[in-house]
């Protein structure tokens, strides 16, 4: 049963590694967007520290969005999505594998590079740690929610814009609690509560989103 999840993850990771430019472009997008803010605002440390969580999270949301339109579109175009739907397993498990692979390709690199970028905003070591933890915990939810949008807009012309309109509003809770965790740490309140809520959202997204996406994919394949 779980073999299929690992099989899909292995396949998607292998495909992603054959096209490293795609991973690199999302990461560079994240780096550049985040770096523009300190350059534009100037060396006002207090202001930068206040802005940091929001800027990093908004950039992370947008960087995740970059790779979403292709989550199912490539498989749809070459016919492999049909074969995945015909595999003798529930389609939800296949999508779970794809969501996890998407996170490993797009969310995990962002979390790894975020602390380096945080230094530009003069964040303290504690805040950097919480920032990394929050991005690690929150990005799987982004991949899960994004998969629903990607499945719903599959095969539509100009689906990319519609996908952003569908998905970005649903990212708001993750954004609020993700940025809130860092804010709370900076102001000395402690970010544990926010991090727990982020973890809860991720568990809910990984648990439910693949099945909703699978239902949308079945409609797209008719």
């Amino acid at each position, binding site marked *: 049963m779980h*073999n*299929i999840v690992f*099989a*899909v993850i292995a*396949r998607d990771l*292998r*495909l992603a590694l*054959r*096209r490293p430019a795609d991973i690199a472009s999302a990461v560079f997008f994240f780096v550049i967007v985040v770096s523009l803010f300190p350059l534009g605002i100037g060396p006002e440390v207090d202001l930068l520290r206040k802005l940091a969580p929001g800027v990093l999270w908004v950039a992370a949301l947008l960087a995740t969005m970059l790779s979403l339109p292709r989550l199912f579109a490539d498989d749809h*175009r*070459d*016919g*492999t999505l*049909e*074969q*995945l*739907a*015909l*595999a*003798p*397993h*529930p389609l939800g498990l*296949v999508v779970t594998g794809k969501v996890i692979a998407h996170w490993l390709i797009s969310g995990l690199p962002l979390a790894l590079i975020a602390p380096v970028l945080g230094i530009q905003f003069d964040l303290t070591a504690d805040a950097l740690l919480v920032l990394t933890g929050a991005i690690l915990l929150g990005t799987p939810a982004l991949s899960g929610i994004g998969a629903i949008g990607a499945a719903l807009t599959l095969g539509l012309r100009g689906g990319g814009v519609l996908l952003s309109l569908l998905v970005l509003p649903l990212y708001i809770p993750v954004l609020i609690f993700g940025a809130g965790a860092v804010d709370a740490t900076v102001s000395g309140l402690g970010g544990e509560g926010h991090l727990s809520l982020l973890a809860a959202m991720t568990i809910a997204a990984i648990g439910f989103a693949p099945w909703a996406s699978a239902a949308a994919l*079945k409609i797209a*394949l*008719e």
Partner: protein
Amino acid sequence: MLEADNLECVRGERRLFAGLGFKLEAGELLYLQGRNGAGKTSLLRMLIGLLPPETGEIRWRGEPIRALGDEFRAELCYLGHLNAIKEELTPLENLLAAARLAATDLSEDAALDALEQVGLAGREDLACKYLSQGQKRRVALARLVVDRRALWILDEPFVALDVAAVDWLAGIISAHLQRGGLAVMTTHQPVDIPAGTVRQLRLGA
């Protein structure tokens, strides 16, 4: 084994066919014919369960395929218009990945052997994007060489193949039927498949 009963297909505003039914037993081949747009591919997609019929029912071993779900799909091999191969992967990786996703056992040796049979010896480790259309089709067909599932649904399997490959594929299909398998296929070119019972179904006539 495979039965269709009173199927109706509506695409958009048009009714493509209605009241369609057939019965197919082990070792039998069903040839679907009909002009373009007659609903051949739609019927195939109903048979694999991707397109729910407007009315009617499809049964496999006496049970409706919707109720069987995974059990039915475990016995089904579908080859569509699209090759379902990944351009970035090599033919060997494609074959192994497809087998793994379909939960069928396939050793690397068996996969290499299948690729040799379809005439891709020496190209196992070349990414599929460097292959020609015909060669890509052969990678997709290599799946059939190693497939031992009971029901084959083939949509235009002979497209983009040269004469020798058409004969070879006809042999593969007839070997499948002799093992007691079933096959449903569409084709525009008349191909002689040396097998037991060949049934014909003409759509839109």
